């Protein structure tokens, strides 16, 4: 038996197929992955993401420490409630994890992946010397993500009826990538689907009530299967697939998450990613692209790509995430390919099928986004 979230029995009641996910018994799907996917694109769905790890950072050096630990710069978060997406890098400029960090009244809150929890916590512990920082994991908090075009309205309604009137205005008033809190409730305009939505952190003992109220309001429970097709349509990275400790953020479409300025901020991995930047300029670093295949078939993680370079030579690339897009009704993928690739083809069971390269990101707010 794996770890269980406070909603485990509700998942069973809702008919979920439960699978082991990074040591947690999590719902992969309730009815049909495509039905659940479409519910989020057209109405609203709720995901139990309580398996993710919340770490609160406080103490007089909290900001200084995070500016050292993270490639993005938390000094950009001017006021409480603002959030940013960032990589946490190792000295070689590989990605230890990707995470969201929020500025809070008490300091900062990080939400990191569940499969990397122990490694992340160890890495943080190992780098506390010289900083007056207090780290507190919050395993007693659950996280629900409500996503979809109707998510904001329905979340506001539900918060109102659950006696959280001070948070009920948040879905309407918060801008994307901002959050607000009340006691141990924390409501953020963040998500992982390319739709409007909220992520709600709250005490375990309240999670069931919120879940029930959302379902009552017509929000559909969504499993991790649809979460993956939704995030991939949105062109978002998945740790351990699209990047890991051996991947430069510059090869994982994460260049925008590196705060190069101020130039004197020494964050872990800075020297290495500055070298990567030069390699990228020289065409020596692989890049991440989106792939589109409208022919019949599905692109899958691990498929080899044959990439044709400007001089006609051929090099290999690889698909890091691939799926059938329920919204677009054809295959999409994220892939790591040699810089300078002119065209590429996927090796599907020995046949080379041409694929189109696009900027990562396929669907946003229910609509196709590439040309």
């Amino acid at each position, binding site marked *: 038996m794996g770890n269980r979230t406070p909603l485990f029995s509700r998942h069973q009641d809702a008919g979920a197929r439960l699978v082991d996910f990074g040591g947690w018994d999590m719902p992969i*799907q309730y009815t*049909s*992955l*495509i039905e659940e996917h479409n519910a989020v694109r057209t109405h609203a769905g709720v995901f139990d993401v309580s398996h993710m790890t919340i770490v609160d950072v406080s103490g007089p050096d909290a900001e200084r420490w995070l500016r050292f630990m993270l490639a993005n710069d938390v000094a950009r978060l001017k006021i409480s409630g603002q959030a940013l997406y960032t990589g946490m890098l190792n000295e070689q400029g590989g990605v230890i994890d990707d995470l969201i960090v929020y500025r809070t009244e008490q300091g900062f809150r990080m939400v990191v992946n569940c499969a990397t929890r122990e490694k992340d916590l160890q890495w943080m512990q190992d780098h506390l010397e010289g900083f007056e920082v207090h780290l507190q994991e919050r395993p007693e908090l659950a996280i629900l993500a409500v996503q979809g075009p109707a998510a904001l309205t329905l979340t506001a309604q539900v918060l109102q009826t659950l006696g959280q009137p001070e948070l009920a205005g948040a879905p309407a008033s918060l801008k994307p990538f901002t959050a607000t809190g009340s006691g141990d409730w924390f409501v953020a305009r963040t998500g992982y689907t390319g739709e409007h939505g909220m992520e709600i952190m709250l005490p375990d003992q309240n999670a069931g009530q919120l879940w029930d109220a959302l379902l009552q309001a017509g929000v559909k429970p969504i499993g991790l*299967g649809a979460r993956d*097709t939704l995030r991939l349509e949105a062109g978002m990275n998945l740790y351990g697939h699209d990047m890991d400790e051996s991947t430069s953020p510059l090869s994982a479409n994460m260049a925008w998450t590196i705060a190069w300025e101020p130039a004197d901020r020494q964050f872990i991995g800075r020297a290495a990613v500055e070298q990567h930047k030069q390699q990228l300029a020289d065409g020596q670093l692989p890049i991440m692209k989106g792939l589109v295949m409208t022919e*019949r*078939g*599905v692109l*899958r993680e691990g498929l080899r790509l044959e990439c044709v370079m400007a001089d006609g030579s051929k090099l290999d690339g690889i698909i890091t995430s691939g*799926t*059938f897009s*329920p919204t677009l009704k054809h295959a999409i993928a994220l892939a790591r390919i040699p810089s300078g690739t002119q065209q590429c083809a996927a090796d599907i*069971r020995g046949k080379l099928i041409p694929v189109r390269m696009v900027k990562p990101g396929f669907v946003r707010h229910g609509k196709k986004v590439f040309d």
Partner: protein
Amino acid sequence: MSDFPDDLKYSATHEWVRVEEDGSVTVGISDHAQDLLGDIVFIELPEEGATVTAKDEMSVVESVKAASDIYAPLSGEVIAVNDDLNDAPETVNSDPYGEGWICRILPSNPAELEDLLDADTYAGMCE
């Protein structure tokens, strides 16, 4: 609960076989298999006229989650394929034993039928 009709034979690799009056067999994938695969989005059908060998790959079913090989339950010639699945692969999810059939094979060695499982044995294997 998955459905295991009594009048069919099954392979351990989740294909079903129905013997037709003319001695040919209709082949599909079991209800249990379609349920495990989830939403089916693409099927690479065998070619009509192709010769297949029992237990060899003859087609591929792709769901959103995974690609899965379909094995020939019997040796013989493929005499018909269900072209409707090209446009509506999800029929395999909704009606695996009916409209979701995959192909018909004229067996070259009907004795191979003896190697297939009856419904109870197959159902037990799927538990």
